[in-house]
């Protein structure tokens, strides 16, 4: 049974804005990246998953339960971490997470224990006894994650979890997300604008645009290796190119790198030997990979058109 299963999901807001348009997809458990332009329908989709919105037509099931009729049961086993600030500044992390745990159905003692555990797992120690108002952005994000995990959900919905964090905080949050998905065994749906992060942490990708599904596939499908070898030497790139061309390889320059096609394994040793003979400093040699950026690299006119389309919807 797929984790999430949508069939022809459509949602039209009262004003006429068509946020979701015939979305059909199946998602298996894992760490799933969820990308799309602002206004493409991501928050709407998450709200529908939580049973907070009834779709105009079509249906979606989470854990095999219809969100339109069994929202309450679904919400017992789903954790949600919103993008925006949502914590009361004058409660302590312990009190707040414990309260949220009880609101999710945990008996008092269990809520207390799990609160302590989750705060430890997200990395909040003595600060948990201080009021949230004094926390840094990083600490607040951790509290948000803890309240989403306190009731041991089967599915975690994270909306831009690294928003507002500095690079160090970002690293830590991504590591937490990875641990949650891989070690804790909880399915995670991460919505993010940072494609590099998605590539690092996720195993599956869902992309939507204009309320429609544009891509849904394992991440590997988008980050496959190309049959091109990129080589960088500290100096003497032209000499390297010359030597390789002389040996019959179709080498060309691109920025700092020298590129060769990889029809077989011969180029590897050719590069190695050329560098050794010419006394060149070899600093990089790797197969080109596709990146998620390529998915989004729309031609100039198209992106302006998309903005206008989103403007109408926003």
């Amino acid at each position, binding site marked *: 049974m797929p984790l999430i299963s949508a069939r022809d999901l459509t949602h039209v807001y009262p004003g006429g804005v068509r946020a979701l348009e015939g979305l059909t997809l199946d998602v298996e458990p894992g760490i799933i990246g969820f990308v799309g*332009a602002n206004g493409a329908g991501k928050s709407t989709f998450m709200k529908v998953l939580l049973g907070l919105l009834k779709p105009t037509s079509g249906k979606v099931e989470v854990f095999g339960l219809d969100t339109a009729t069994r929202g309450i049961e679904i919400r017992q086993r789903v954790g949600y971490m919103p993008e925006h600030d949502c914590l009361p500044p004058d409660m302590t992390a312990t009190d707040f997470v414990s309260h949220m745990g009880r609101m999710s159905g945990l008996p008092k003692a269990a809520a207390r224990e799990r609160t302590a555990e989750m705060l430890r797992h997200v990395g909040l120690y003595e600060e948990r006894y201080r009021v949230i108002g004094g926390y840094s952005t990083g600490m607040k994000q951790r509290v948000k994650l803890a309240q989403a995990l306190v009731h041991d959900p089967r599915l975690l919905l994270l909306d831009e979890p690294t928003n507002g964090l500095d690079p160090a905080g970002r690293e830590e949050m991504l590591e937490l997300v990875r641990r949650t998905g891989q070690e804790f065994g909880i399915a995670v749906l991460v919505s993010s604008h940072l494609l590099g992060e998605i590539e690092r942490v996720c195993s599956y990708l869902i992309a939507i645009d204009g309320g429609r599904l544009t891509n849904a596939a394992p991440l590997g499908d988008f980050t496959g290796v190309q049959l091109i070898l990129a080589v960088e030497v500290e100096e003497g790139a032209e000499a390297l190119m010359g030597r390789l061309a002389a040996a019959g390889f179709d080498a060309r320059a691109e920025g700092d790198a020298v590129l060769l096609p990889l029809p077989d394994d011969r180029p590897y040793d050719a590069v190695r030997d050329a560098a050794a003979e010419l006394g060149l400093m070899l600093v990089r040699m790797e197969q080109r990979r596709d990146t998620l950026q390529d998915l989004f690299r729309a031609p100039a006119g198209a992106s302006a058109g998309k903005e206008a389309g989103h*403007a109408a919807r926003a």
Partner: protein
Amino acid sequence: MSAQLAEAAVPASPGPAAANAALELRGASKWYGNVVAVNDITFSLGAGITGLLGPNGAGKSTLLHMIAGFLEPSSGEVRVDGRPAWKNPDAYRSVGLVPEREAVYPFLTGYQFALMNARLHGLPDAEAAAEAAIDRVDLRAAMHRRIGGYSKGMRQRAKVAGALVHDPRILLLDEPFNGMDPGQRMHMMELMREMAAQGRTVLISSHILEELHHLANNVLVVVAGRLAASGHFREIRRLMTDRPHTFTLRSSDDRRLASALLREASVQGVELGSATLSVRAADRGGFALALPRVARDEGVTLLELRPTDESLESVFSYLVKR
């Protein structure tokens, strides 16, 4: 080592650091009681794009507000076009600031907001300037709609229009990419590149390093109010001589290659992973030179070689920990 870093304190910005550099700070500090937000910062910038990096609370916003002339330096100097930034209306004409928090009135239209800024600057033809700014950020289609109804990306662009309306030579942006999707970010980056190509000095504060390093090769790194490093981040990495360079390798025989590499003077250590080989090299150039030779002599095919710690992220995290 600190001497070497001090030399890099005056960054190699794309334009020459002329006597009348667009932007110059000398020993600038700002404190609030006991809290020192900015501590003795010195640098100068010319045309081009520079990134301003630092952990949360490092003083980046304070620094930008000082450059924009909104905060008086507690000591030292902040000079724009050779003149002090503080209490200097002329300086305000040369600087545009796009702040991080929402700084637009939702009941105004995009055009009205730009017009308001144009009028506040006392521009002779405010309407034309406002329209030109709107065009530059590609907001013409929505310019007569209220900002309250804009998407996040459009709101950011409206803010940029407001900051551009007086055609400033220096453009300061505080976390401009927050909340933008990849398409909107690319659009904004294009705009920044255009601005820089026109000879403007663009200083962007951002946490999103993966984007910033496509945009700005030169960076200023601020940690707890101090300037930790400046310049091209690859250069900065090279200057970190107290930290060995690390490389990740894959080859046809990692173990054999590893033991051969250990015989090289440039190599400090190797670590065999399940599928890769990590090498710590005190002498980056020496290692890069030795590697192909050693591999060839051992008959080992090199399949992959990557420096692991030359990324902007890696440089940044090292600087923050010092």
